[in-house]
């Protein structure tokens, strides 16, 4: 048997190379001998299945279960958001509508937008990604199953709080983009705005978790020898989406934190009287908000790129062009956030920059549209139900794109800004670019989810109701907008010319709602009464159909390899002729590959059923709940509870013994993840730090922005006095020492002095953190001026990361004491190193920034 693990300490054992140093090529992987499929199924099911009953609800971490829960919950929130939309249409049907008073109307349109954006669209794409990705990539689960479950419970708890606020009459009412100063304490004294800020931030934890999860899974958990250039286009789209989430959400999270700190503690980030600017909120919000449109669109486009060729009985046209278009979209979408702010009074130069970028982004979008049309032209289109929704997408999204180009032009934007024309445009883009493709996706993958075929006729009727209802509702809004009707007004008594258009919109709105209700009814009927579906009903070539229906919890009895690249491998894979057949060690295992080439590197042992995610989300939720209740002095207890839970996550990882390599295929054995350095956890930490660095960069952007827009900043009072600079330098020195020690500890992990090294590193990190405390206390009162508030935020960032670094140092020391480090086993050392470096680098920048402010003051 070839053993790829026989390498000395310090090397990344088994990293996709054979003992003689050559890379593992496809030809090196032989087929496993066939086994009885039923025996393999029983073995795998025992290891991978969820616990029964309520215990299963709280302990499942399987991607299939969590993904379906995400999707089901998002559709429940969609229904709630839809009911709110109907209430809006009922109110606007007549010009003196008395259905809602203004206060409630404000809450309802704010909640409609917030629910559809944060509780429906993003979670639905997360759910689809979690459920689908391992299936199309040829893996058994996502990279971090517990993280999936944590994300779900954060979403469920946060979303529930946000929706319940409506029942108690304290729902957010400042618009879904929460512009300041309307949402500052002065004009929104209740807890309405706090519910949005805290609830959405709580929910966004799930988005960040999903972004890390999706990125790492696509890069590292593919079938053996599936290179990036040959993976399914859906994976490319989801990779683009997850990278955009890593870069797009941090500005929103930062903005929410700053606004909540301003509301709770009076730090004036957005208060003009004290050096802040409401435009800072708009910049941070739209730095997230515009990429968000593409975050939503890309997974939908991925579904289209999957479904269109299959239902056209051909292959996709222009794979390379589509990948390039996705990359272009990912980048360009970050260069046009200011087009949401064309009317706020910004310089001509910025208007021109962002208008040009807004027009340019239509190009990669158009490339994809042409590729899809070309694919349909080349193939033979079958108008099955998913294809009907694809047609609905074309009819709707293209119109939304064209009005988008119109709105990208500054003079037109000035005319149409904040009118119903914009409402029509955004619904054409979001419903056309997300809802129609998602309905196509649900129709397409339902047989794999339920194992059943749908009841004939219902789905088609639902489609026509939705299509006709949608266009009847929103096409007319272009006209009401061009006639000058502003958004967010509850009545329009002085403008009777808008009334008949609104009335017709409202009638069609009800038709659309009936269509969505029928769609939901169709799904339920299929689940309960549909006849059993036959295998691969669409005759798709992709790996997601190379498994029984409905999909089992482990997906594949053996993992696809070079010989099993498509759906035709269903029987060989079920007989165990692929890689890692069965679960002979009683663990949940999946293969980890090299990111670019897909060469197999090691075997990851995944977490099994546990209640830790739900407990952790409850701990995080306790912090948000205490903040929401105004119990700020108790909120640190929530942080403490969260840290304790985070410690528990590390407790059940690691191993104290060297395990033998796992046989992946005859003649090929790979090490388990405990004995390699470049683990999924390491890649995940890198992805998380990319998001963290974006948050920090957004904070620096805030400092720069307020510096140039706020005139006459006051000189520091206590400032950064003579005793503080040595203190700051001492803190940086301690951080640098602990960073060096983290490296030395890993390099000398076999030595008897390992515990001394980790203890010294822990001490140095702790000293660095301790020295930051007087630094924070010595700064000027942060409520005095935006400059002081920003300084407080910058130092607070350093302190927060210091706490994480110290925890990781402690984790490394405990790993050393318990024997989890030694030989090829590194415990928490690599992740500790990463955070130490990040903490040191950002702290150096922060200290330099504060010093520069002193010099320039």
């Amino acid at each position, binding site marked *: 048997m070839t053993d790829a693990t026989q390498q000395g300490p310090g090397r990344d054992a088994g990293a996709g190379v054979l003992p003689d140093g050559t890379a593992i090529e496809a030809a090196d992987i032989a087929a496993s001998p066939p086994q009885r499929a039923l025996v393999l199924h029983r073995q795998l099911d025992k290891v991978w299945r969820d616990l029964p009953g309520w215990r299963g609800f709280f302990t499942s971490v399987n991607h299939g279960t969590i993904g379906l829960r995400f999707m089901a919950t998002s559709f429940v929130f969609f229904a709630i958001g839809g009911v709110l939309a109907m209430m809006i249409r009922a109110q606007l049907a007549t010009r003196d509508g008395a259905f809602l008073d203004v206060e409630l109307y404000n809450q309802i349109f704010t909640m409609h937008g917030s629910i559809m954006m944060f509780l429906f669209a993003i979670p639905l794409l997360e759910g689809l990604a979690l459920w689908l990705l391992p299936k199309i990539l040829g893996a058994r689960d996502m990279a971090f199953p517990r993280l999936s479950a944590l994300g779900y419970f954060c979403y469920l708890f946060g979303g529930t709080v946000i929706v319940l606020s409506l029942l108690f009459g304290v729902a957010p009412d400042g618009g879904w983009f929460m512009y300041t100063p309307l949402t500052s304490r002065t004009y929104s004294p209740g807890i309405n705005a706090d519910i949005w800020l805290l609830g959405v931030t709580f929910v966004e934890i799930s988005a960040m978790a999903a972004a890390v999860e999706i990125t790492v899974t696509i890069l590292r958990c593919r079938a053996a020898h599936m290179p990036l250039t040959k993976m399914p286009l859906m994976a490319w789209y989801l990779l683009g989406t997850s990278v955009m989430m890593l870069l797009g959400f941090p500005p929103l999270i930062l903005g929410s934190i700053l606004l909540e700190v301003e509301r709770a503690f009076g730090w004036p980030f957005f208060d003009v009287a004290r050096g802040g600017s409401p435009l800072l909120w708009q910049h941070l919000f739209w730095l997230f908000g515009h990429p968000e449109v593409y975050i939503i669109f890309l997974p939908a486009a991925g579904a289209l790129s999957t479904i269109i060729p299959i239902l056209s009985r051909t292959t996709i046209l222009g794979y390379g062009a589509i990948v390039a278009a996705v990359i272009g979209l990912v980048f360009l979408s970050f260069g046009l956030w200011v087009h949401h702010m064309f009317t706020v009074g910004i310089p001509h130069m*910025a208007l021109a920059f962002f208008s040009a970028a807004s027009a340019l982004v239509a190009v990669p979008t158009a490339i994809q549209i042409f590729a899809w049309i070309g694919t349909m032209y080349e193939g033979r289109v079958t108008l099955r139900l998913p294809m009907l929704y694809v047609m609905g997408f074309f009819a709707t999204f293209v119109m939304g794109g064209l009005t988008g180009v119109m709105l990208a032009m500054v003079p037109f934007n000035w005319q149409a800004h904040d009118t119903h024309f914009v409402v029509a445009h955004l619904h054409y883009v979001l419903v056309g670019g997300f809802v129609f493709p998602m309905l196509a996706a649900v129709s397409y993958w339902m047989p794999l989810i339920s194992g059943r075929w749908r009841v004939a006729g219902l789905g088609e009727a639902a489609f026509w109701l939705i299509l006709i209802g949608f266009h009847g509702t929103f096409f007319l809004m272009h006209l009401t907008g061009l006639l000058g009707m502003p958004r967010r007004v509850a009545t329009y008594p002085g403008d009777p010319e808008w009334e008949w258009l609104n009335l017709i919109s409202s009638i069609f709105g009800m038709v659309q709602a009936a269509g969505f209700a029928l769609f939901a009814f169709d799904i339920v009927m299929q689940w309960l009464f549909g006849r059993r579906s036959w295998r691969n009903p669409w005759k798709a070539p992709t790996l997601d159909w190379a498994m029984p229906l409905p999909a089992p919890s482990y997906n594949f009895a053996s993992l696809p390899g070079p010989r099993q690249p498509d759906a035709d491998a269903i029987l060989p894979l079920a007989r165990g002729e692929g890689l890692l057949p069965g679960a002979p060690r009683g663990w949940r295992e999946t293969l980890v590959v090299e990111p670019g080439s897909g060469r197999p590197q090691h075997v990851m042992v995944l977490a099994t059923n546990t209640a830790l995610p739900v407990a952790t989300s409850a701990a995080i939720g306790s912090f948000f709940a205490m903040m929401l209740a105004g119990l700020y002095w108790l909120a640190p207890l929530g942080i403490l509870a969260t840290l304790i839970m985070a410690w528990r996550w590390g407790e059940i990882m690691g191993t104290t013994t060297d395990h033998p390599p796992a046989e992946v295929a005859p003649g090929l054995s790979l090490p388990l993840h405990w004995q390699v350095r470049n683990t999924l956890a390491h890649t995940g930490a890198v992805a998380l730090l990319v998001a963290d660095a974006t948050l920090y960069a957004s904070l620096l952007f805030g400092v720069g922005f307020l510096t140039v827009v706020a005139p006459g900043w006051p000189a520091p009072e206590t400032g950064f006095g003579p005793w503080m600079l040595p203190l700051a330098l001492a803190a940086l020195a301690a951080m640098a020492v602990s960073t060096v020690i983290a490296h030395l500890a890993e390099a000398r992990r076999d030595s008897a002095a390992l515990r001394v090294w980790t203890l010294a590193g822990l001490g140095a990190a702790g000293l660095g953190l301790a020295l930051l405390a007087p630094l924070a206390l010595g700064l000027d009162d942060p409520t005095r001026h935006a400059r002081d508030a920003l300084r407080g935020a910058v130092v607070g960032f350093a302190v927060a990361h210091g706490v994480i670094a110290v925890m990781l140092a402690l984790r490394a020391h405990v790993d050393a004491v318990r024997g989890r480090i030694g030989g090829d086993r590194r415990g928490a050392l690599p992740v500790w190193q990463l955070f130490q470096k990040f903490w040191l680098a950002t702290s150096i920048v922060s200290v330099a920034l504060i010093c520069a402010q002193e010099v320039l003051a």
Partner: protein
Amino acid sequence: MIWMARVLAGPVLWAVLFSAVYALHGAGCHLGWSDRPLGFTDLHHAAMWTVWIGGLLLHAGLVVWMPAGQGRARWIIVAGTWIGLVSSAFTLFPVIVTSTCF
């Protein structure tokens, strides 16, 4: 991952240039650079032009010298370099034709 780095090099350079010119724009307005004549233009425009043109030269270098690999892998790298070049040329073109601080 070297392949991915090559694919992303062009768009990343665009992002860097876009951020740099946007930051120069804000800082120059704050520091009053547009009121300081420099040759046939002013300090503010000159600074932004320098960064932009320098960036375009770098882009051109990527297009000419960086692609590697074969088939689809090479095609995607080439596309990435052109995406960056066209994006920088088009979206930052306004620095030479519009006014700056009002």
